[in-house]
């Protein structure tokens, strides 16, 4: 009987790996659990073992090839034993007590790949599909921890609080989370935190770790630090804050920054783009959809303000409040976290100054917003006066954006932030 061994997921949610060398060749007879190949993924080099016993009749790829999980590797002729539940794939799943805000402890070294079957169905029980529907969660975005890649009830239950898709994780804000909130808030009633020994990462931490690792490994990014004197902006905000408040809107500096960055993205389309190294193409995005990194007790999320370039500052301010609340309440939907083309990460509220934001998803630029600090500065009469300086950190993908361009965009952004009147003229 012919059996086909497909690329297993040997690591935490590994999507692909390089076959560095074959340990078998066509014609070899192997026993179950014999090593058949050496595979390298982002983190480790590992031997993979055969789930079948029999004669190798075909090797699908050459050594050195990158293979996606699930792609065929070896064809066997022999007594097949299907690749299910072999030892190294044991799933330990413990469901936490049912209380709403408790985070289930899920430890799994099984697949974290979404498993969709041939006809497009997601492996999930009807009750799970209904819960996902109820919570507005697209099941295809949930990391499954169940047997054979099933999305379980607790995967969906903990999705809002626990899950963050790779492209939505932005590390620097996590720092803000830790600085700005009590440690208890970071993992409410989560599995007991051990201070020594090993502790499995939560799915969120794992997703962030993976995303950050991948972004850092693939994107040669540069961060330009700068600061801008924003007395006029502070005055502008002060004079409109009360009025906005009366309209039920909390006017924040972040709203101005979104508007200014959107305008900058319009002027410098290179920062509102994506790089496709497979085709050597640059994808310029028509819309400016601004990701806003928001931290919640369970992790960080990047909801998106769609068409930020076409919205007023008040509308943006309102949306920021709504989206942040949705994140904190756990009612944010995956739909609301999709489609960003450029991102802002705000450490200002946590009194952060400069930092090196890591680029989000398939984007090429991210603006880190620091706090506004009163600092001595020299005015046009050479007098030392008190200035209000906002700290800016712009990280960009050097494959697409060179230093000069990065700084030019930053300068323009500064101009807009320095004088809100400018925004009126330019945006």
């Amino acid at each position: 009987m012919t059996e086909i061994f497909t690329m297993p997921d040997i690591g935490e949610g590994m999507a692909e790996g390089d076959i560095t060398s074959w340990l078998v060749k066509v014609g070899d007879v192997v026993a179950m659990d014999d090593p058949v190949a050496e595979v390298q993924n982002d983190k480790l080099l590992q031997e993979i073992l055969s789930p079948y016993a029999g004669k190798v009749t075909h090797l699908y790829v050459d050594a050195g090839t990158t293979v996606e999980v699930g792609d065929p590797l070896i064809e066997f002729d022999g007594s097949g034993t299907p690749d299910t539940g072999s030892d190294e794939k044991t799933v330990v799943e413990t469901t936490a007590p049912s209380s709403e805000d408790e985070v289930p402890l899920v430890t799994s070294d099984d697949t974290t790949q979404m498993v969709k079957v041939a006809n497009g169905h997601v492996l999930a029980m009807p009750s799970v599909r209904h819960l996902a529907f109820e919570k507005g969660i697209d099941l295809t975005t949930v990391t499954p921890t169940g047997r054979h890649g099933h999305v379980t009830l607790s995967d969906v239950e903990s999705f809002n609080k626990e899950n963050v898709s790779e492209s939505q994780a932005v590390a620097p804000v996590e720092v803000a989370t830790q600085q700005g909130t009590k440690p208890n808030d970071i993992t409410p009633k989560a599995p007991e935190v051990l201070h020594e020994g090993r502790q499995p990462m939560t799915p969120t931490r794992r997703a962030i770790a993976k995303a950050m690792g991948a972004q850092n490994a693939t994107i040669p990014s540069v961060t330009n630090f700068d600061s801008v004197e924003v007395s006029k902006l502070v005055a502008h905000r002060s004079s409109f804050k009360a009025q906005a408040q009366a309209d039920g809107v909390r006017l924040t500096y972040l709203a101005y920054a979104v508007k200014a960055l959107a305008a900058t993205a319009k002027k410098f389309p290179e920062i509102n783009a994506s790089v496709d190294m497979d085709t050597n193409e640059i994808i310029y995005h028509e819309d400016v959809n601004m990701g806003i990194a928001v931290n919640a007790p369970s992790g960080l999320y990047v909801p998106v303000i769609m068409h930020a370039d076409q919205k007023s500052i008040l509308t943006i301010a309102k949306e920021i409040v709504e989206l942040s609340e949705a994140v904190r309440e756990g009612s944010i939907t995956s739909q609301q976290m999709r489609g960003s083309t450029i991102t802002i990460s705000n450490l200002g509220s946590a009194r952060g100054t400069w930092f090196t934001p890591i680029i989000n998803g398939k984007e090429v630029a991210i603006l880190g917003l620091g706090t506004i600090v009163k600092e001595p500065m020299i005015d046009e009469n050479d007098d030392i006066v008190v200035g209000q300086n906002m700290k800016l950190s712009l990280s960009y993908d050097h494959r697409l954006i060179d230093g000069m361009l990065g700084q030019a965009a930053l300068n323009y952004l500064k101009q807009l932030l320095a004088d809100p009147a400018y925004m009126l003229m330019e945006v």
Partner: protein
Amino acid sequence: MVVGAQARDVDTIIIGSGPGGYVAAIRAAELGQKVTIIERDEIGGVCLNIGCIPSKALINVGHHYREAISETPFGLETENVTLDWSKTQSWKQNTVVNTLTSGVKLLLKKHHVDIIKGEATFNDNETVNIVQDDGHELLQFNNAIIATGSRPIEIPSMPFGDRIIDSTGALSLEQIPEKLIIVGGGVIGSELGGVYANLGTKVTIIEGLDHTLNGFDHEMTKPVLDDFKKQGGEVVTSATAKSAVQTADHVTLNYEVDGKEQSVTGDYLLVAVGRRANTDAIGLNNTDVKLTERGVIDVAENMQTRVPHIFAIGDITAGPQLAHKASFQGKIAAAAISGDKQARDLHYSLPAVAYTQFELATTGEDLETIKSDNLEVKISKFPFAGNGRAISMDDTTGFIRLISDKKTNALLGAQIVGPSASDLISELSLAIENGLTTNDISLTIHPHPTLGEAIMDTAELADGLPIHI
């Protein structure tokens, strides 16, 4: 609205009391609605009165009769078998149908559902007019569920009459006919043809397509057709029924096949060419409810029509006309009306069954879809001939076929031909709905000796570790 007529305010109305309507009524009442159900004929709709239930009763009689007059391999001999057909009819009507319909009436009563006998038509988006034997009544409703079902399609050149009958007529023939002609070899035509073939009638099926039992593949239908022919049945496919002439005691059907005119004469002509949704005479034109091009009501996933407080379920919505589909949708509509914003039809598999001599059942993907959609699947098939229980029942025709995802082994579809296919298919629907793999099935202990074990055997086959084959 009729001038001067005063509409009575009601909460939720349900029009039609078939498996869609009565189930929706009970569920809505369970969820706190004050429900009024309107039925112009009999509680239970087509399914209980003139459809699924009475047809299965007669199918059962056909099986028993055939068994009684057939030689058995195990030495049972019966002589002088007779069938009192009028007793059959009375049992079917009084015991089977009436037990069920009065049971449904009781359930409705238990849930304080008001039953109004009459024919409802919409006056506008908020009111229905109900024509009763002795007058009419106007109801102003907050929510409505339309569940008016379907009726047999009549071919103009062969209008229903004494000798040209629909399925209802075929279920209540006063005598077992000697010769029965059936136009339409779909599930209803084939099931009823099977009943009479088993009772000794010479049955001729005239079918327009090049195959009968549409929806089931050739491999599945072959044993059924072979048996039907063994019983003296005749099937003419790719044939067009042209016209029919009835006399006092016979009917002659003219049809064309291969460009040639032919005719066949029988005692009755059953026209079973499909069913038309009852959407035409219920005043939908006075509402903002929209129909699709195919004449069924356009509904969202929660069964809502274009009018937010009017829902539609069952045969009058798109998809196969099946009682269990109607009931499933009825529960969704009831939940939606009761304020469940999440109520949705999220099903993966809709099983379908034909109660032919060898039962046919399918759920999820079938051979046609895997071919047309180029799905990467694994197919495993296990014959009932390898199943101990089937052998002990002398009922070994048929097989179980599982279609599973090539990569994950998740079950995507299944077909069964043979004993208890109609009951066995539920396990496989459950498996599909829950994303179970063939391995999950083979790891589930199945009692021995049962027909269900054959499902386990088929799953083991898919896993590459078969025992019984």
